[in-house]
């Protein structure tokens, strides 16, 4: 049971790091602000979610070792994820709206760049 939880937390953390690094790489490489927003959104949902899931599995292992008060840590993890889940789309929306209002023209591949 504990080995299974360890394996699950490793899978979750590695998966979260993968999504986070790919999303940040997209922020670094994409051509304009709107495409970069798309890459950054993936970081907040999948990356943060899987990392926090991995931490939750570790907390459950600690609880099995007698740290009975750690259920509060689980509640906090859920709260952190809930806040990120609510604030990230709002921030993305506000950024896209501000960029449109600020006159940033969306990038199209008319020049035929690769």
């Amino acid at each position: 049971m504990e080995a299974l939880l360890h394996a699950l937390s490793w899978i979750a953390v590695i998966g979260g790091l993968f999504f986070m690094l790919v999303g940040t790489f997209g922020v670094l490489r994409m051509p304009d602000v709107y495409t970069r927003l798309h890459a950054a959104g993936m970081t907040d949902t999948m990356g943060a979610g899987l990392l926090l899931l991995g931490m939750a599995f570790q907390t459950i292992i600690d609880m099995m070792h007698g740290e009975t008060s750690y259920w509060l840590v689980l509640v906090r993890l859920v709260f952190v994820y809930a806040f990120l889940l609510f604030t990230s789309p709002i921030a993305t929306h506000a950024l896209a709206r501000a960029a449109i209002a600020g006159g940033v023209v969306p990038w199209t591949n008319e020049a035929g760049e690769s």
Partner: protein
Amino acid sequence: MLFGVATAGILVAMAMALTRALLGPTVYDRVLAVNTFGTKTVLLIAVLGFLTGRPEFLDLALVYALINFIGTIAVLKFFEFGDLGLTRRVEREAE
């Protein structure tokens, strides 16, 4: 071990976000980079809490998530309208 790997990965991602913040080119790219940097800071604080065996750090992560959101919205509002809404209120009241 697990959280050491997670810390290293998050630090690499933070460095990449900072590079975008420095490169720009528009101010919205910089705000976007700082916003993702803040999200990664939240996760870094949480992971560091587990790494040092003190999960109470999650409280700090919670507060930082909220401050990061408020800060992004405030900066965006400033760049969208050139102010935080005060001049338009003054104009409305003058009419």
